[in-house]
Every structure is written in structure tokens, then in C-alpha cells.
């Protein structure tokens, strides 16, 4: 069935991203206007705007299954694109769409469910002889069982929530005496965050690389992969920079891991776009970690090296069309790098730095792509994620891409909030990053500062501070107080002044 009108059940840059492809394909889009972002940029790109500003529910509309379905039916949308986050990996939502004859642009509810439950996903992968870390066979019901399993596989181990993923609900345990406490914490956290207290245990791989494979499948059982993405630059499991391909893989390994990815996806009859994530250890062994059943934030790097629009393929597959590519058609050309420019304060441990974007000027050029959902005047609100823009650079090889990236970073102009730019400007000059040897623990364990240090810039800032001081004390007599009269002040008064500071 041909898709004619997509309800975008998302906001921000991914809403904009999906609409760009839809427009090119001649498909209409419906967007949802919420009370928290009534002037958001994505609203200006939709053909229809559904006004949901009167919604007083405590649940954000993008998480409200009933309401999204109602909006789709009311607005005449024949399909829903969930983007990422929110309801993108909710099997009940995908099922609810089917029940209401709305096309869910994504995989089947069954695939989402099976890959979403990490214990089931592990069992499926194990049955297919997919390389995996040693771990418990199912969920761990008690502390004693946790201790028994951990003894068998050896410390350190990691406790994961069965319904978790994306780095949430995990605890690393280094010693047996920590196990009871960590087990309780992981269990409680899983219950609170995912409404499912079940957890399982795996051997913890220290200092791995994070490498993931993009897959595409259709409803007829054809599945291909679109090579890998290297996502080792992450902090607390939040990715900051991704590139494709990965320097860590040679052609043989790339081919092998690609085939393994297709095998995993086939095991659940996967269709639409998906990502198979692996840990890659220092010895070059890889382990299946999880499969994400959605379009990912970092999908543009794959698009740049393969020349394939993943959103377009998602839509075509959702219409029931057959994949138009065979594995041999998928070329790997050049190198792509994505920097996630977030409203975060890298100098205080990447803490969110919400605020109004007063100005945003992004570089442009043949090898530069910018995916963003904000413009001058947009507000990075505390209740949504902190993404401002993704700066995506293409080069003929890694060296070329890195050089362009370095230049492009210096051309970004954002006023109004703190950003992750100083982090990228530091990273792009870091030898460990440049030689491709970093692992997921790099940021937390090997960096002493998270921002670029420039002697000249510091000096200019010092000059500016001095200039401001002079400006505020322009009245010469005022300045004189400190220069000459202060010596006549009583020590008591002086002290009081200082304490006030």
C-alpha cells in the first residue's frame, strides 16, 4: 500500500529529518504541536499541524499511545513514523497501529518485543551460535543466584535490566562482597525505569570498542547490512561522536560481522532499518550486545558512505515493497564523521545546559551535512534531550574527513547555551582519537579535561575580564578607591568587604 500521509510521532531533528525525505517522495506529513514547544522548528515543515497544546495530560503526547493513535485517525494519516526514543521501540504501540490499520514505519511488534527483551534476545542469538559474552541463561531471581552465576563466569560482571538497553539500567560488579547491594540496586532501578525488575548477568568486557552494524530488511525476508559505525566515543553510554567505517575492522572481519548481523536480524524475521551492536575487545574478538529496532541518531554516517537514504528505505519497506538492493550493491565509499553538538557544559561533567538559542549559524559545503531541529530563537528545554545539531562531515578517507571536521567545528556559531563544541575541538586534536585506538572508557578514564585548552584564547578572555572591570568602574574616582584610598580603610571594614565577595 502506498503511503500518502505520515504522522510524525516525534519532535526535534529526527522529525525534521523524516519530513525532508517524505517531502522528496511526495508524501504529506502531519506534525504535533505541543504546549511545551509551540514554536518548534519541526512544525514549520509539516503539511498539517495537529494542535495538541490543550492537552493537559502529565504524559508527554509522544509517549501517549492512545493519544497518538487518536491523532493519526483524526488527521487522516495512514502511517506513523516514530523516530527514535519515545514510542519507537514499544511493541504495544506497533501492535496498536496495526489494530487500527495504521502502518507503523518500523519493524513488527514481535521483532521489537524479542529484541527489546535482552534475555530473549540472548537466547535467540545463542541458538544461532552468535558470539556473545558468557552470561546467565535467563533472569536472575535472587542475590544468591547472582553470586553463584558470577562465581561461574568470574568477576568483573555486569548486571543488566532485561528490558533495558541503550546503556540504561546497568551495574558493573567487581567483587563478590558488592554483589548483594548492586543486585538490589539494579533490580530496583530496572523496576522503576522499565516496570520490569528482572535482571541478568554477563561477563563485563573491560575497555571495549563499540561497533554496530546497520541492517535493512523487507517483509519478504531479504536482509542486507550497510557496514558498520564506530561509536566508541561515548560517556556514560551516551554517544558523542560516531564515524563510519571503523578503523578497527579489516575487510574480512567487516564481512564476517556483517554476515553475523544479518543472521541475528533474520532470526527474528526482521524488516525495516535496525542496528546490531557489538562489543569489540582488545584481542579483536567481538560479542553481540543488543539490537536496536529503530532508526538511530547516528544513521547519517551510514547514509554518507553508502549513498542510501535510510528513511526512504524504511518508508518503502513499510509500504510492503521489496528491497531494491542486494548485498553486493552496497558499496563503502569514503569516510563520515558525526559530532553531536549538545547543549551541555563539558566543564561541569557534561551537565545539561538548557536555554534559548539566540543564534545558530552552521557551516555548509559539499561535504558538510547538518541535521538539526533548532533555529535562532528555539529553546533547548529541560524536559527534552539536549541535542542542538548534528554536524556530519564526509571525506574521501579518514584523514580528509578529520581535516574537514576540524575546520567545520571552528565555523559553528551558536549563542545562548553552552555546547559540546570545546569537547570536539579537543578530541579532534587528541592523538589517541586520531590513531583510532580509543575505547568506550577513554573519556572517563583517560582524559583529564574535556575541553580544548588554548593559551591565546585564555589570554583574550583575561583581557576581556579586565576590560569589563574597567568598563564597570569607568568613573575614575571609583577606581581610585582601590588604588590609593584603600590603604586608609580600617582593617575591619576591609575584612567585611572581602567576606562579602
Amino acid at each position: 500500500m502506498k503511503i500518502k500521509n505520515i504522522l510524525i510521532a516525534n519532535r526535534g531533528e529526527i522529525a525534521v529529518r523524516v519530513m525532508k525525505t517524505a517531502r522528496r517522495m511526495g508524501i504529506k506529513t502531519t506534525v504535533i504541536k505541543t504546549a511545551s514547544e509551540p514554536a518548534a522548528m519541526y512544525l514549520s515543515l509539516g503539511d498539517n499541524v495537529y494542535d495538541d497544546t490543550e492537552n493537559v495530560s502529565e504524559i508527554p503526547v509522544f509517549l501517549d499511545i492512545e493519544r497518538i493513535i487518536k491523532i493519526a485517525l483524526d488527521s487522516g494519516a495512514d502511517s506513523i513514523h516514530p523516530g527514535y526514543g519515545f514510542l519507537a521501540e514499544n511493541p504495544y504501540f506497533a501492535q496498536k497501529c496495526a489494530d487500527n490499520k495504521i502502518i507503523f514505519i518500523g519493524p513488527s511488534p514481535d521483532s521489537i518485543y524479542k529484541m527489546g527483551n535482552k534475555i530473549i534476545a540472548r537466547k535467540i542469538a545463542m541458538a544461532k551460535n552468535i558470539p556473545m559474552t558468557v552470561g546467565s541463561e535467563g533472569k536472575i531471581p535472587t542475590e544468591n543466584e547472582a553470586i553463584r552465576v558470577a562465581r561461574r563466569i568470574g568477576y568483573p560482571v555486569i548486571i543488566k535490566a532485561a528490558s533495558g538497553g541503550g546503556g540504561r539500567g546497568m551495574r558493573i560488579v567487581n567483587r563478590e562482597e558488592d554483589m548483594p547491594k548492586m543486585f538490589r540496586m539494579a533490580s530496583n532501578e530496572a523496576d522503576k525505569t522499565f516496570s520490569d525488575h528482572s535482571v541478568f548477568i554477563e561477563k563485563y568486557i573491560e575497555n571495549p570498542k563499540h561497533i554496530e552494524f546497520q541492517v535493512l530488511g523487507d517483509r519478504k525476508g531479504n536482509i542486507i547490512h550497510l557496514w558498520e559505525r564506530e561509536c566508541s566515543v561515548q560517556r556514560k553510554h551516551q554517544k558523542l561522536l560516531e564515524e563510519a567505517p571503523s578503523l578497527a575492522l579489516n575487510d574480512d572481519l567487516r564481512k564476517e560481522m556483517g554476515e553475523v548481523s544479518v543472521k541475528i536480524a533474520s532470526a527474528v524475521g526482521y524488516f525495516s532499518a535496525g542496528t546490531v551492536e557489538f562489543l569489540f575487545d582488545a584481542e579483536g574478538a567481538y560479542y553481540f550486545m543488543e539490537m536496536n529496532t529503530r532508526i538511530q541518531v547516528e544513521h547519517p554516517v551510514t547514509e554518507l558512505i553508502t549513498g542510501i537514504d535510510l528513511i526512504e528505505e524504511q518508508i518503502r519497506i513499510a509500504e510492503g515493497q521489496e528491497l531494491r538492493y542486494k548485498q553486493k550493491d552496497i558499496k563503502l565509499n569514503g569516510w563520515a564523521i558525526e559530532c553531536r553538538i549538545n547543549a551541555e557544559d563539558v566543564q561541569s561533567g557534561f551537565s545539561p545546559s538548557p536555554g534559548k538559542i539566540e543564534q545558530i549559524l552552521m557551516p555548509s559545503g559539499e561535504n558538510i551535512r547538518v541535521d538539526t531541529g533548532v533555529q535562532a530563537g528555539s529553546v533547548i528545554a529541560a524536559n527534552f534531550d539536549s541535542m542542538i545539531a548534528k554536524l556530519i562531515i564526509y571525506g574521501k578517507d579518514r584523514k580528509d574527513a578529520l581535516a574537514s571536521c576540524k575546520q567545520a567545528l571552528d565555523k559553528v556559531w551558536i549563542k545562548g547555551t553552552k555546547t559540546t563544541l570545546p569537547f570536539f575541538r579537543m578530541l579532534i586534536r587528541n592523538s589517541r582519537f586520531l590513531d583510532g585506538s580509543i575505547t568506550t572508557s577513554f573519556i572517563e578514564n583517560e582524559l583529564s579535561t574535556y575541553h580544548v585548552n588554548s593559551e591565546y584564547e585564555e589570554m583574550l578572555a583575561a583581557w576581556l575580564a579586565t576590560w569589563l572591570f574597567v568598563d564597570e568602574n569607568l568613573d575614575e574616582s571609583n577606581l581610585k578607591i582601590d588604588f590609593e584610598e584603600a590603604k586608609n580603610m580600617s582593617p575591619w571594614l576591609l575584612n567585611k568587604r572581602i567576606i562579602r565577595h
Partner: protein
Amino acid sequence: MAKQQKKLYALMGRKKYGFNLPLTETIRIGKRKYKIILKEDNKYGTYVLWKNRRYPVEIVMSRQNKFDILFNYVCYSFTVETPFSLKRKQYLDREKGQPEEERILAPMPGKVIEVMVREGDELNRGEPLLILEAMKMQNEINCPVNGIVKSVNVAAEENVVKDDVMLEIRISQ
């Protein structure tokens, strides 16, 4: 008073930058002088022009002689001192010695997810104190010093606003 060159110092940590008064819009590096131009317009907001490049600047905080300046997205905290106030500051710093307590302030509004420490706990620098959730991200707040927990002022599920004192740590020498 003896005639001396009027000067101001911008201090950040152990770093000290001296500028002669009246403040000129040039900085000397080696033998060359470079012009600094501070400008503001509708397109770029406030910026500094230096060696043919435009740098974004923002005054994050300005209080008496303290300035937090965002220069090219990096935040610098300077205090500006006159030669006299600098001497006074150095004298007082020696007298006061190290601060004895460290207050852990909420870096931004959010919700406390978990408090990992109790009153009397002995902690090393870098150990986790609590988890604060803001903007969908759970942030671990770590202990900035070696010390003993003097007071815990927040509990799990509690909301905090920016600069709330969440914990107090007595610094061990």
C-alpha cells in the same frame, strides 16, 4: 604615593595576566602587537575579532570583580585585582589556608534519583555521591575532595533547584 604604572591583574587559579592601564585594545605577543576588537551586531551577537578571526563571547556572570566569560564556548572564571587588592588577597589566602568544607551544590534543576552516601561516610575524591536526573539524563555527582560527609540534605525522589546545597563534605587534610 610613589608614581607607579597603574596595572590590573586577571587571575584564574594560579594563572595571572597583567594589563597596564589605561587598557589598550592591543596585546603584545613577542615583538608583534595584535589588535583586539570587541563588537556586537545583530547577526553574531557579541564577539571578539582577533587575527582575522571572529570568536563568540558571552558574559556568563559579572559580580564586583569576578567575571565568568565564555570565550569560544570555553568558560573562564577570572577575578580582576589591582596591585593593592592582589597583595591583600594573597595575604588573606595565606592566613585563611585551605577551606575546611566543600558544599555540593545542584548544578541545575533536577530530581535526585539516588543518594549513595550517608553522614559520616569517609570518601575519596571521585567517589559517587548521588545521581541527579535532568533532561532525561542521569548524572552521577562525584566527590570533588577527600573528606567525610558532614550532612546530607537531599533524599531520593526529591526535586532540587540550581545551587541547592545537596551535601556538605568536611575536607580531610
